[in-house]
């Protein structure tokens, strides 16, 4: 069982005289070891402008509130209607960047404390978001009896 992630970044003209060609591969594993990740969740969702949404589980569901684990998040803004649309993304109510229409991102996420959820807030109009979270440590809440 393995999950791999590859990136290639190229530019013939960003740095004149030195064409850019970055390639990197990694095999995603559990925190601190070489054992493969074994859980995932993914979805495509349509989100209206101006409302915050949480992507993935609550931070308190990661490793049963143990935090500081290994997980990886891919997010792609699939919006094509208007290239100026974007989603603010952040952690812990702190917005970190803008994922514009057509852009994607890939980050490690360690749910560093109880409030460290991944949050997005669409801007400009309805944005279509694809995401996939790879992990090994989501523990779902116990159902009420």
């Amino acid at each position, binding site marked *: *069982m*393995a*999950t*791999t*992630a*590859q*990136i*290639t*970044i190229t*530019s013939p*003209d*960003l*740095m004149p005289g030195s064409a*850019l060609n*970055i390639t*990197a591969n*990694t095999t*995603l594993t559990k*925190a*601190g*070891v070489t054992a*493969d*990740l074994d*859980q*995932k969740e*993914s979805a495509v969702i349509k989100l209206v402008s101006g409302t915050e949404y949480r992507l993935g589980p609550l931070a308190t569901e990661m490793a049963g509130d143990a*935090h*500081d684990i*290994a*997980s*990886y998040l*891919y997010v*792609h803004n699939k919006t094509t209607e208007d*290239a100026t649309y974007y989603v603010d*993304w*952040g*952690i*812990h109510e*702190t*917005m*970190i*960047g*803008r*994922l*514009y229409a*057509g*852009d*994607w*991102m*890939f*980050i*490690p*996420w*360690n749910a*560093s*404390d109880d*409030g*460290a959820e991944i949050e997005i807030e669409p801007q400009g109009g309805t944005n279509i978001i694809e995401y*996939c979270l*790879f992990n090994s440590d989501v523990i779902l809440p116990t159902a009420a009896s």
Partner: protein
Amino acid sequence: MATINATTTISSDIASYPVTISGEMTMTKSANPSVGLEETTGLRTKKFTTTTAAVIVEEDELADNTAHKVYIRNASASRANFFYVAYNSGAAAAATAETIGKLYGGDWMLFPYNGSTDITVASSTSTETQMLEYMVFADGIVAAKG
């Protein structure tokens, strides 16, 4: 303007069906999505021998609330060691509220960045040297402030 393309392929056999995700994008400016980014802070390689947190992206060198992209890779091999990566003007560590995640040996990340707060890192080990590669694809660089 420049043309900068970024592609990713993520493959997994976690599920009973094969998962293959492909993402492609051309990095463009926030003010005009048909115009490519044309500035960079350069591709840097830095050696870390202590656990002291360090700033790798200084927010005051970049325009606020535009379409910057940050690429970071832990160029070391050990899956036992990692860098904390944080969106924070202070330390990067496990309990920092804006810690994004832990970048283990070989791992990479690419994320949009609004240029409003520094990006900091901290190595998890002082007994083994770790190497970090990073680059900002900038949507507006301002002169460094003294």
